[in-house]
C-alpha cells in the first residue's frame, strides 16, 4: 500500500500539471498511469521522442516535454503501467502493475483520465484496417510508424493535423472525407467574435489547411452515405459528396469526429454527469476547481469536459491549488492569487471551442447509425437491435445492456455507451439526460482472480 496527500489518476496534460503544482505547494503526490511513459495520449511518449519525431509531430506536441520533465520532483512518485481497476475514496485506488495488485491511498484524489475518440459507428467500422485517427497519431508518437495508404474520415481540426503529420512523414493520406457542411461553418460564424480571443487556434487551423493543400491531399466535404467496404479487411471507403458517388480504395481508414470524456472511472465512483449539448456528450458536474459531488474527489482535463490540452493543464493546476488549500498547506488568499493568471489563460483557451464545436459537429449518420450498423464492437450489437428494444419499452442503457449485452464486453461500454444513449433517447423521444448512461462498476479493466485475492492481503497489512 502506498500513501500520499494527493493521488492522481492519469499522467496526461491535466494529471502531469496537477502533480507538479501540488508538489510545488508542498503536497506529496502519487501519479498513476497505464502507459510506460508519462504524457497521456496527446503527449504520448514525448519524453522519449527524438528530434526528428518531434519535428514531424510539430510544436504543439513538443510542448508536452516540459510537463514530463517537471515530474522529476522529490514529492512526485510516478507509477507507470498501473492499470487502475477500482476507485474508492476510503480504501484507495486498486491497481495492477505487471499483474501485481496493490492499493494507493490519498487524502484527496484527482481523476484526470483524458478523452477517447467519439465512437463513429459506420457500416464496416469493425473491419481490420479501420482505426481511429488518434490511433494513427499514437503509432507515429510511440513507434514512428506511419500508415501508407490511408483515407481520413470524419470532421474536426485533428484530421488536418494528422494529414499534415502523415505528409511530413512522406505518406500523405489518399484523401480526407469530411462530414461537416457549409451550413455548419456559417452557423459557427455566429461564435466568430468569441473565437477571436482564441485566434491562435483559428490561425493554426488555417496554416494546417494550407499545408494539407500544398501536400496535394484531396478534401471531400459534406460527405454522406459513408461506408467502409471489405470482407476480411478494409478495402475501400465509399461515400457521396457534391452529388457524386466516390469509392476510394485503401487499406487503412482513420475515423475521427471529435473526442469525448473518458469518464468510466468517474462514473464508477458516482460522480454526477450531465449532457452538454454543444459538446454533444456527457460532462462531469464540477465547480471551477474541479470539485465533484463526491467528497475528496476532483476531476480535471478532458476526462471531465473537452477543452483541449492547454485547458487541461490549467484545470489540473487549478484543482491542485484548491486541494492544497483544502489540506491546509496554502491559504485561501494564496490560492486565489495563484489562480488569477490561470483563469485568464483558461478563458482564452476555451474561447475558440464554441466555434470549433459548431463548425465540426459529429457526423449525424454515426450519431444515430442505420439499423444494420454494429454499435457495440465487443458484443456485435447493431443499432437496429437497440431500436427494437426501445420499441419493447426499454428506456435506459442499463436495460438495453441486459436485453442485448451491448456494453457488457471487455471495453465495458467505452465505445458504444454514447451511441446507445443517443439511439434510445431518439427512439423514446427523451433527452440524453433522461435516458442516462451505463452504470459503470468495478473492475474498470479486466482483472484476474489472483490479483483480486492479492488486494485483500494488501488491505489487511
Amino acid at each position, binding site marked *: 500500500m502506498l500513501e500520499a496527500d494527493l493521488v492522481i489518476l492519469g499522467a496526461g496534460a491535466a494529471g502531469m500539471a496537477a502533480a507538479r503544482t501540488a508538489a510545488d505547494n508542498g503536497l506529496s503526490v502519487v501519479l498513476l498511469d497505464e502507459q510506460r511513459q508519462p504524457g497521456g495520449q496527446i503527449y504520448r511518449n514525448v519524453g522519449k521522442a527524438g528530434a526528428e*519525431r518531434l519535428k514531424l509531430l510539430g510544436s504543439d506536441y513538443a510542448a508536452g516535454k516540459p510537463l514530463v520533465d517537471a515530474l522529476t520532483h522529490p514529492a512526485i512518485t510516478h507509477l507507470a503501467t498501473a492499470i487502475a481497476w477500482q476507485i474508492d475514496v476510503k480504501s484507495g485506488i486498486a491497481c495492477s502493475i505487471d499483474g501485481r495488485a496493490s492499493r494507493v491511498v490519498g487524502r484527496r484524489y484527482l481523476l484526470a483520465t483524458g478523452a477517447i475518440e467519439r465512437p463513429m459507428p459506420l457500416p464496416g467500422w469493425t473491419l481490420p484496417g479501420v482505426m481511429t485517427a488518434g490511433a494513427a497519431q499514437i503509432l507515429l508518437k510511440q513507434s514512428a*510508424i*506511419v500508415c501508407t495508404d490511408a483515407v481520413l474520415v470524419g470532421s474536426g481540426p485533428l484530421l488536418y493535423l494528422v494529414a499534415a503529420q502523415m505528409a511530413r512523414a512522406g505518406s500523405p493520406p489518399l484523401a480526407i472525407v469530411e462530414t461537416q457542411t457549409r451550413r455548419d461553418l456559417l452557423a459557427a460564424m455566429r461564435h466568430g467574435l468569441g473565437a477571436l480571443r482564441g485566434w491562435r487556434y483559428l490561425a493554426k487551423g488555417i496554416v494546417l489547411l494550407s499545408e494539407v493543400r500544398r501536400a496535394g491531399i484531396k478534401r471531400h466535404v459534406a460527405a454522406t452515405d459513408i461506408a467502409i467496404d471489405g470482407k476480411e479487411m478494409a478495402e475501400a471507403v465509399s461515400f457521396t459528396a457534391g452529388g457524386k458517388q466516390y469509392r476510394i480504395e485503401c487499406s487503412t481508414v482513420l475515423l475521427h469526429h471529435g473526442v469525448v470524456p473518458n469518464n468510466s472511472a468517474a462514473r464508477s465512483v458516482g460522480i454526477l454527469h450531465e449532457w452538454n449539448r454543444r459538446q454533444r456528450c456527457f460532462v462531469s458536474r464540477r465547480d471551477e476547481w474541479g470539485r465533484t459531488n463526491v467528497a475528496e474527489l476532483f476531476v480535471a482535463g478532458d476526462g471531465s469536459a473537452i477543452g483541449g490540452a492547454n485547458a487541461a493543464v490549467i484545470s489540473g493546476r487549478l484543482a491542485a491549488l484548491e486541494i492544497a488549500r483544502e489540506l491546509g498547506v496554502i491559504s485561501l488568499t494564496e490560492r486565489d492569487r495563484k489562480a488569477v493568471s490561470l483563469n485568464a489563460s483558461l478563458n482564452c483557451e476555451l474561447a475558440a471551442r464554441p466555434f470549433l464545436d459548431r463548425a465540426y459537429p459529429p457526423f449525424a449518420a454515426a450519431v444515430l447509425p442505420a439499423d444494420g450498423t454494429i454499435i457495440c464492437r465487443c458484443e456485435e450489437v447493431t443499432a437496429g437491435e437497440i431500436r427494437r428494444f426501445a420499441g419493447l419499452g426499454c428506456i435506459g442503457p442499463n436495460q438495453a445492456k441486459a436485453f442485448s449485452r451491448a456494453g457488457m464486453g471487455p471495453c465495458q461500454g467505452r465505445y458504444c455507451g454514447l451511441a446507445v444513449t443517443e439511439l434510445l433517447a431518439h427512439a423514446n423521444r427523451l433527452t440524453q439526460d433522461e435516458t442516462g448512461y451505463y452504470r459503470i462498476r468495478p473492475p474498470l479493466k479486466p482483472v484476474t482472480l489472483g490479483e483480486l485475492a492479492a488486494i485483500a492481503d494488501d488491505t489487511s497489512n
Partner: protein
Amino acid sequence: MKAVSPFRHLEEGDVLVRVVFEGSEYRLRKGGNLAAELLAAGIVAIRKTVVSAAPRNPYCMMGACHDCLVSIDGVTRQACMVEVQEDMTVSMPPQRENGNA
C-alpha cells in the same frame, strides 16, 4: 505468411527479436509496442470476435477498445499495452474466454 504491411517504420530499427504469432515466426523490434509491431509486420487479424469469429485488428491503440486482445503465454492481454520481448508466444485469445470480465 507475411503480408505486405500498409504500415511503415520511419526510424531505423533497434534490436529485432523472435516473436511467434499464431504459429508463425516474426522478427519484431525489441521493446516496441506489440500491437504496433504486429501491424507493421502485416498482421491483418490480431483476434477473432467471440460472437461471430469476425476478424479484428487494433482500433484505438490507447488501451480503451480491447480490440487488440491477444493471448501471451496463456494470459489474455491488450497488445497495445505490451512491449515486445524475445521469444514471446502470442496467439488469438481463446474463443470462449475472450477476456469477458
